[in-house]
């Protein structure tokens, strides 16, 4: 080994001088070029539920394309389209069958005992199960090497099998139809999905598991660097947060598609600066929520700005809930559009207060083939306030990662 280690710096130096060439510029005086930090975001009908089939029929889903490689490989790679951009979760989760269709196999991370690490992640609509694996992930010109991601095992019989408490009775949502997406790109306010809670619990939380070769999985604590991780935090630059930039919609009854952008970094380049005035910065608590009060209610609710939710989601017993059609369970307000508002308040140092007005449309008036709707509201029975996708149209939304600094602001925060 020793001769190679000695040679490596010499080789690198030789290559570097070859690259600089004969134009007289010394490598030392030129700042490295800033990475291309803009990724296209598309709102459309989503991926096909099955290969070659029609789009799944998603609404208000913001998608990006993510390049995934087996660590260290230049060839075992796949560009996965229709990955859901989710500012309300943390970490990249990819559907196993989609990776398999690209012939990409990501091996499971192992714990200190050599057991494969698996994860059970809970969403309100169900749970995901599958191994935590390492991948080299590239988005635009930004790369996160050896990123812990979750591979959602959508085989009929997952292996290893999920623990009894994970996804019981058909509530596993590992497949493309579970998320209306080929994966979920969680770019929320934290660096890891679970954090300290899953590092030092006296009784390990039912989140991370160590799985034996025989497929027996037991809940265990997992160190932070092995947890499913926000890819932005592993970028060499532009690693303090993101900006989601979507245009206003053209039609109140729905647009066919929307094009926007995801910008990596906050106040790191010329295209992601903090505005001098007018920015509302809402710090979150240790759960990732700021506070909101809705309309005439005085109840203080946990709140977040969440591109993974397709609507403004909150409880209002005064609103009619759709009982038929394709929006059952959402609000079908009488006399739409209704004007409503909520007051957001940040937690901690970033304690801004901001009143946001919004309109609620009647989804029974929505155009059938549209995929983007600005006035969609739902969430009856919810004990929180979620600024879902409609909030993003016509705004720049900033997500600042915990403990990362951007200008005068330190995460975690949401801002607009």
């Amino acid at each position, binding site marked *: 080994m020793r001769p190679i280690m000695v040679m490596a710096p010499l080789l690198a130096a030789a290559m570097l001088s070859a690259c600089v060439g004969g134009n007289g510029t010394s490598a030392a005086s030129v700042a490295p070029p800033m990475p291309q930090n803009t990724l296209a975001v598309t709102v459309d009908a989503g991926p096909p539920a099955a290969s070659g089939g029609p789009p799944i029929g998603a609404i208000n889903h913001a998608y990006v394309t993510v390049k995934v490689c087996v660590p260290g490989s230049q060839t075992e790679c796949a560009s996965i389209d229709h990955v859901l951009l989710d500012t309300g*979760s943390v970490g990249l989760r990819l559907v196993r069958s989609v990776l398999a269709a690209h012939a990409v196999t990501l091996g499971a991370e192992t714990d200190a005992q050599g057991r494969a690490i698996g994860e059970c992640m809970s969403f309100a609509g169900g749970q995901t199960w599958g191994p935590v694996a390492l991948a080299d992930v590239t988005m635009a010109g930004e790369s996160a090497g050896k990123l812990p991601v979750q591979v959602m095992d959508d085989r009929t019989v997952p292996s290893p099998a999920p623990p009894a408490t994970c996804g019981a009775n058909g509530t596993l949502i590992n497949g493309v139809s*579970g998320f209306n997406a080929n994966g979920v790109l969680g770019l929320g306010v934290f660096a890891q999905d679970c954090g300290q809670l899953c590092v030092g619990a006296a009784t390990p939380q039912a989140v991370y598991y160590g799985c034996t070769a025989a497929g027996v999985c037991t809940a265990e604590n997992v160190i932070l660097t092995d947890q499913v991780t926000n890819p932005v935090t592993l970028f060499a630059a532009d690693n303090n947060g993101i900006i989601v930039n979507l245009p206003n919609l053209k039609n109140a009854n729905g647009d066919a598609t929307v094009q926007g952008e995801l910008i990596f970094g906050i106040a790191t380049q010329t295209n992601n600066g903090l505005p001098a005035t007018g920015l509302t910065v809402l710090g979150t608590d240790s759960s990732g929520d700021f506070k909101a009060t809705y309309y005439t209610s005085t109840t203080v609710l946990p709140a977040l700005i969440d591109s993974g939710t397709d609507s403004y989601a909150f409880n209002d017993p005064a609103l009619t809930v759709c009982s038929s059609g394709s929006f059952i369970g959402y609000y079908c307000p009488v006399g739409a559009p209704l004007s409503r508002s909520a007051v957001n308040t940040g937690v901690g140092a970033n304690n801004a207060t901001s009143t946001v007005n919004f309109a609620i449309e009647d989804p029974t008036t929505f155009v059938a083939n549209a995929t983007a709707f600005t006035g969609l509201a739902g969430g009856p029975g*919810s004990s929180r306030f979620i600024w879902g996708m409609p909030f993003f149209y016509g705004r720049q939304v900033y997500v600042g990662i915990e403990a990362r600094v951007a200008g005068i602001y330190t995460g975690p925060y949401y801002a607009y």
Partner: protein
Amino acid sequence: MNFHSVTRNLLFAVLGVNALWVGCAHAALGGDAASVPADAAELHGAVNTEIRQQYDLQEISGEGGMRVREYLGRDGVVFAVSWSGPVLPDLQRLLGTHFAEYSAALKALTHPGLQRSVRVASSELVVESGGHMRSYAGRAYLPALIPAGVSAAEIL
């Protein structure tokens, strides 16, 4: 909240009651009082009981801020449960025999996908569940079994 009367700690649950109930009492919602210590053991939590006029409110406090409440009617039946905490508790355990109806309703959602708030409601069962990693909350109740004069708004 003003809890009083009965306080059982984790040690008691593990040493005294756990062995009797774990494995035989899996129902919570719709089940009997036996489900409370069983769930406490599952959560490795302490139980506080607040005796209200028409029901007992049994609160289990677990690690990391996990909290489960079970509403026990005078007929000895758990008519409601609620939860909040950094992880989603085992809803199969908390909803007991009603979990099947809940899971079937989830699959029937018109726009499934990633959800941070779901509500399932029938004349027999109401489940409201929401949240995200590090912050989940929800409740479930059996409308027909709520004691007369008690509002569903008391189930928090």
